[in-house]
């Protein structure tokens, strides 16, 4: 399967062209974000000091080396489990215009409806593949909220970032829901055999 290529930030139109299962490779700028970053934005009501319109958010807490005030170089940048952060999905799309959330392990079904309504996708990355991911991040361009280290707000410039799989698309489809439905049926069959 050939992969689709997208440059971020992007538009709703581009996102609507993606379908669950598609392979995607990303260029441009992506924003690193994690639990504490989003707790600060949504639970503490502090506005993020970066523009998130059309953005690609990566669930990450990178390993970095400090070079100077506000300047960091990459050491090991990988991706964390997304499910913990599902409750922020609607707010990210509605309030800030985020277009893509990327992480590992999938988002629970409650993300499907807001992603469809707001024109967002969830990209599944290969968890644990940080050595590869680190080579695809060209530079750490900006860091905000350094006191949350490593759960700051990060701006990375990326090239050939991926391969990513569209796990949840903007048309109401979720690979994770499909897999769980099939596995739950299979469990009944396996239990009957035990």
């Amino acid at each position, binding site marked *: 399967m050939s992969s689709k290529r997208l440059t971020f930030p992007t538009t709703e139109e581009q996102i609507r062209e993606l379908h669950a299962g598609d392979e995607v490779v990303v260029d441009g700028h992506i924003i690193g974000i994690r639990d504490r970053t989003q707790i600060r934005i949504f639970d503490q009501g502090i506005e993020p000091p970066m523009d998130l319109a059309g953005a690609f958010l990566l669930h990450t807490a*990178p390993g*970095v080396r400090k070079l100077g005030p506000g300047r960091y170089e990459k*050491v090991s940048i990988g991706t964390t489990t997304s499910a913990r952060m599902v409750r922020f999905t609607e707010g990210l799309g509605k309030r800030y215009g985020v277009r893509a959330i990327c992480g*590992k392990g999938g988002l629970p079904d409650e993300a499907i409806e807001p992603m469809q309504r707001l024109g967002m996708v969830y990209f599944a990355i*290969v968890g644990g593949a*940080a050595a590869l991911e680190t080579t695809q991040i060209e530079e750490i361009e900006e860091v905000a909220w350094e006191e949350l280290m490593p759960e700051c707000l990060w701006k990375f410039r990326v090239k050939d970032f991926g391969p990513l799989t569209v796990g949840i698309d903007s048309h109401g489809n979720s690979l994770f829901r499909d*897999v769980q439905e099939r596995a739950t049926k299979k469990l009944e069959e396996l239990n009957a055999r035990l």
Partner: protein
Amino acid sequence: MITTDLEGMVEDAAAHLYVWALKDIPQDLRDALADAAERETSVTGQRVLSTILKNVQIADSDENLVCQDTGIAVYTCRVGEQFPLHPARIYVALKAGTERATIEHPLRSNAVHTITRENTGPNTGYRLPIVHWEFIPEWDGLDVKCVPKGSGSENMSFLKMCIPADGVKGIKQFVLESIVGAGGKPCPPGIVGIGIGGSADYAMYLAKEAIARPIGTRNPDPHVAKLEEELYELLNETGIGPMGLGGDVTVLQCHVEHADTHMTLNPVAVNYQCWAARRASAHIGPEGEVEYDREF
């Protein structure tokens, strides 16, 4: 405080083991991942497994970490009764080695106070790192195994106090439900560790022991080895697949450790180890001579 040469050597070994485990995954795991890539038939599963293999190669060539999650450092020590350094000093050395590796590399520091969530230090803190002890009579050596345990897989840990009437069937059902429920979160395909028997806490400890065993080993008790085989087959029928995106390979292996238990207990603990099942070992002799990659 007097730091002996031997204490310094244990500290050096701990620092080396932690970084080495994070960069260079064991051969048995590399073989199992390559085998999984050959077996997998789904498009997404193949994509995931070929990316994993590529990642392991890049970690080798760039001498970088396989995964960014440097985990919590978990050590298992087997201490001979004639090993000339007291376990209290061994613990100090392991802690110092963990800190040194974290600062010098540098490694991401994950350790936080469990209530305030404030960082407590370079991958150390109160009761961190975690060390499990075993004491061996009539021996003068020390074996140290380091298992950096990532949170994605550790969060997928489960315990059920089955009743004796649930039997082995109850154990199997609980393991199946747990792994299906975990889906892609623990970075499958990995090693499922199961602890059965003992007590609630001991079953979970045994599950952790089970994930740290090399792939290709079987429990020496034939009843338990049979359960390992059966669970391995069953889990790979669930269709969860690589990274939970669907496919044939859900687990690389299932390991079970057991302890005899009370007649009215039937505890089952599940501890997951992600595909980046990192571990590294060293044997340290009484003069401080160190031999790495000795499995135990």
